[in-house]
């Protein structure tokens, strides 16, 4: 049963960690608009090859 004295603080810390993350991102406005991004994600970007072509490690255009 002694394991509970280890697990309990761990569980509480985990909860605290999530709460902290939630508070930080709430302040940064992550949850200000929950509707529009859901729509925005539906549009495929129209890939424009000239603007930012993918490059390999040496900087050559693939």
């Amino acid at each position, binding site marked *: *049963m002694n394991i*509970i004295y280890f697990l*309990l603080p761990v*569980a*509480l810390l985990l*909860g*605290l960690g*999530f*709460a902290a993350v*939630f*508070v930080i991102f*709430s*302040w940064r*406005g992550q*949850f*200000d*608009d*929950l*509707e*529009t991004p859901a*729509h*925005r994600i*539906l*549009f495929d970007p129209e890939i424009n090859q000239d603007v930012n072509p993918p490059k390999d490690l040496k900087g050559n255009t693939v």
Partner: protein
Amino acid sequence: MNAVQLSISQCRHCGSKLPVSVTTAGGSEFCCSGCEYVFGLMTESGLERFYTIRNDNPPVCPMPVNEPIKNAKFEYCDDPEFLKKTSADGRKVRFYLEGMNCSACVWLLEKLPEYCSDVVSARVNLADSTIEVLRKDNGSFAAIASQLNRFGYRPHPLRDDESSHDLSLREHRHDLIRLGVAGVVTGNIMILSVSIYAGATGALATQFQWLTALLAIPSLVYCAWPFYRSAFKSLQNRRLNLDVPIVVAVFAGVVSSAWALVENSPATYFDSLSMLVFLLLGSRFLLKRIQSRHLQSVNIEDDLLVGSVRRFTNHGIENVSVTKIKKDDLIAISEGQMIPVDGRVESGTGAISCAVMTGESDPVTVSRGSRVEAGSRSVSGEWSIRVQNGPRETRLAKILKDTAVDAHAKTRVVHFADKTAQYFVALVLLTAVSLVLWFLPVHPREGFVRALALVIVTCPCVFGMAIPLSMGFAIRSATRRGIIIKTADAVEKLWNAKNIFFDKTATLTTGELAVVSASYEDVSDLRFALGLEENQSHPVARAITRYLRSLNVQAHPFHDVSMVRTGGVSASHDGYSYKILPLRWNSANSTTTAILSNFGLLKNDEFLATFELADRPRIESREIIDWAREQRLQPQMLSGDREHVVRLCAHVLGFSTSEFRAEMTPESKAEAVRNRASVMIGDGANDAPAFAAADVGIAVRGSLDVSLRAADIYLTKPSLRAIPELFEIAYATKRAIYRNLAFSAAFNIAAGFFAVSGHMTPLCAAILMPLSSMTILVSALLSGRKLVPNEVAR
């Protein structure tokens, strides 16, 4: 592909079903000229993908765009004084857009920088129906606004100051954090409590209880803070609101739990208290979110006192802001302009439409010496006026000011829920106190336990959560249908409505002149009429042009068309003079023709054709009036228009002689609807006082800023069919609320009885209370879901 298109026969732009007559005639793929115009613009700008996105992503917009306002002017958006109010840095403005509904709208609007060179970036918020636009340094907001208008999204710039947007955003984030913290705390407490309920004893149980108490601190101090504040405020005002028993329960619970903790007895209630806080915060958060979206429109900047006009000075003509216009200035008026001041015509002739002020449908000719009132719109001609009253002293400005005062003083119905809640709370607290006092001499602890159980179990959640939630759903469901409801009060007042008053012009009628009949000897003569009227902007000319085009008449070109009198034009060809003249004055003795406006086409003095014009009732008007009678709402018509015009219209719409009144001023309309359990349906400034005086004011189209100031409800769609829908929503909400009230009353009486008689422990109460709250919330949610359809039928 073809087969599919043929079988569905929808408008290619808005997707609404086309009337059979249009499809069988062949050819047209659009429901109206507005849709055709926007479709053309979209394909021109290479934005056809809009339609693919829209059709691929249900729900398809029921009506994604409005017909763009023709000749709408947005120059005021670049006015420095205006920018001061709407933009902190002069580069970023938020617009409220009418008609934004779906993914395709988001796609189209966020592409703004690609087809509008004035824009750096555009960010849409679908939930608020707003777009935030960042312009280039040399960009113009007027150009941006008119681009938005061209696509059919009517833009309304929003005020930007600390008091509105930022503040509400900060509050929203704060609420969310409170809710999140309460959730985390409650979740962890429940894990510990379950083991106590399951029978943990000894040292472990004691430690768990202490841990629970520790965890509950942030919930009871930080998260529950809004309840303490609100309860304190209401006690300061000598009132009992719903937060008072909540706070009493929390305090009593904390005190008794702390006592139990010290005494090492198992009767601690930290779990139930934090659960209570979490559930209450959650339902209030939901409610606030649903409601705040609609309050946005209150921030709309009014465009009456903004914009610029051309003023004559010693050095020529200069553009000045409307607010700088003073008495005795001379200003130029051009076609389509809204006149911002009262004054007298100094030079030139033209025609104005006074529809906003009087509801009169026909344009009026003005010439030197005529008096014009602010709020009228110039429909033709170029002329100048000498200002008599500056923009803040006009009759229109006074009406709007009185309206604002009136709307403010409007006695808010004391919600019957609020009233009941007050008595309920008082009763519960009194019973609790008397329980404690009763048991004090014999068994103090027993009295305290029973009182605590009573206070916890009878939490009036139906008043605090279920009713506002149902109201919120009603508002939301109305918004989905294009009906903006300003406050929940309006929904409650709709339940009790007995009289329904309609304005005539542009409410029951289309507000636009149209040719209702024409007579002519030779159809080829009509080409002269089209040639004369084709390029005129007068409403009469537009009506005749539309009519002739529908007959496929080819225009005869004239070179010297000139305007004579109201709606009259003349030109010459081959030594003949051709004229279109109003015949009203010529045939004054004929009673039938006097009702309508008649115009004749003359070649020298010989009649070639006559046209009968009228402002026709909307197709659905009769249907709506019959519906109102069925619902035992007494329909009546109020109009500022002349007696005979109103009489004819009343006859067509089936009003009896006692059910309509003509030649009314805005003030007399207000008197007519006051204190009569009335709903007023109208548009524009001339109905504004009536909106404020009526129990519920419903504005149909009209100008958004003027109407919304006084009206409680605004219909964004031109059709009156939204009105039965609105009432249906209100009645359904009423049913849901009464059902919840009945359940809650039954539960509270039963549970209260058990608590007082001592058959319910505080623990049992703490479990039952959230259960009953959940039942009521679920019931409210279910009836709300019925109101807000997830998918709009194609």
